[in-house]
């Protein structure tokens, strides 16, 4: 952990699975979407995940609209979140900064249809450690999929450092070892593919449990120590942000502790402030 691997946030809030967002997309509510974008950038997001929902017929138009709506008000790259190659291809035509693509997996169809886009447009890409429909339980099986994916990635000419592997964090409530499996997978990937990045979505991990924020935060720190360098989450969640700032400091990513003391002066550690961004 001597190299620079501070943890970067992929802001998750512009997602068509959320009711208010899909309504805003349908109504072409520019103000709502732009505000949501700007707030996440102000809170420190390094990418904005853009998901237009999954209505196939309108997804390409909706995704293009989102990109064109968000781009004028932010300066960070977007993370185009879709399994639909048509929607991705359409959105890539209008993006200004090379985007991240979310996502490919071990599914051959997805590799064939999406990797060429990634290669042609110098995108970064998130790769899930799963096959078409199933998430393997064991670390070794997930690693096997990562091998398949990396073989295809390298064959398509995409450099390792443009790949963000999501080892997948499953529900603790149904398998108390699931977080350990994720951490184990991460360490193994780090060792075999030192140049790839690691990323994670946290929505499944604490499902069905109370006080979810504690679980998410502690796991995030452990995952960070295991080599995680980006994470898909709600950057408006102050508790998570405060945790990340402290973790960056502890893991030697915050020279002179400035990020930490600045965050303190900005009031990030004020416990009285209500946590915003319930998702």
């Amino acid at each position, binding site marked *: 952990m001597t190299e620079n691997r501070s943890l970067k946030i992929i802001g998750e809030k512009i997602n068509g699975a959320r009711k208010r967002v899909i309504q805003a997309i349908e109504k072409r509510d520019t103000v709502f979407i732009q505000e949501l974008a700007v707030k996440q950038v102000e809170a420190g997001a390094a990418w904005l995940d853009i998901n237009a929902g999954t209505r196939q017929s309108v997804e390409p138009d909706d995704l293009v609209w989102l990109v064109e709506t968000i781009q004028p008000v932010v300066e960070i790259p977007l993370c185009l979140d879709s399994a639909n190659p048509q929607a991705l291809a359409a959105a890539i035509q209008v993006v200004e900064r090379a985007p991240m693509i979310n996502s490919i997996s071990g599914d051959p169809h997805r590799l064939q249809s999406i990797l060429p886009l990634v290669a042609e447009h110098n995108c970064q890409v998130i790769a899930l450690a799963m096959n078409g429909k199933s998430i393997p339980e064991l670390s070794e099986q997930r690693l096997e999929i990562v091998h398949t994916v990396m073989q295809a990635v390298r064959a398509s000419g995409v450099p390792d450092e443009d790949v963000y592997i999501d080892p997948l964090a499953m529900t603790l409530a*149904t398998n108390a070892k699931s977080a350990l499996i994720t951490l184990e997978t991460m360490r193994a990937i780090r060792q075999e593919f030192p140049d790839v990045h690691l990323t994670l979505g946290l929505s499944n991990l604490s499902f*069905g449990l109370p006080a979810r924020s504690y679980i998410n935060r502690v796991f995030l720190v452990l995952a960070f120590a295991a080599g995680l360098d980006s994470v898909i989450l709600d950057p408006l969640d102050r508790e998570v942000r405060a945790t990340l700032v402290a973790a960056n400091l502890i893991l030697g990513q915050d020279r002179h502790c400035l990020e930490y003391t600045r965050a303190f002066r900005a009031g990030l550690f004020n416990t009285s402030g209500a946590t915003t961004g319930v998702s």
Partner: protein
Amino acid sequence: MSKKLVKAIADMQEESALKQVNQMMADKVEPAVIMDDAMEAMEIVGQRFEDGTYFLPELMLAGEMMNQITEQVKPEMAKTPVTEPKGKILIGTVAGDIHDIGKNIVSFMLEVNRFEVLDLGVDVPPDKFLEAIREFKPQVVALSGFLTLAFDAMKETIEAIQGAGLRDEVKIMIGGGQVNEEINKYAGADAYGKDAMAGVTLAKKWIVAK
């Protein structure tokens, strides 16, 4: 009879519950009595889940205890068959959606509550549901989905069931993600369940009522 067993299961005392079952079997207690106690405990666990005292892990552990107890008494049961399955339930995640955590939990809870469950998996097209309704003849069909896209697929699946003239044969429940009363109306289901226990409650209500 043993309220000790009911209490042990309801209080998540796995070891003590299994020990209690062994003791009861040694004492020649009827398997049906043991299973009744276990079911009574499951009811209590379900209530505690509903009122927010228990969470998903407790629900899962209760289900596992239930399974272990069933395994233990099975050899005795075979001699005096008492518990027929309560009814048949067909379940699956609708076309275009591959989320299965919620569906699997519902499936599991239905099974431990003595329903015969046929799980078609994920991304299940309407004609697969139709085929299974014809062959498996369930009383209840449970459609799961997490994506907004799933709401359309639920609607299409239910329309297909209607179109095939099978709508009156089955009660249909939907669940997953942001499913609510509005979606329930939109999809044309009979009811929606907000969690696994709600699914079990619906199934009991419908199948017992039949």
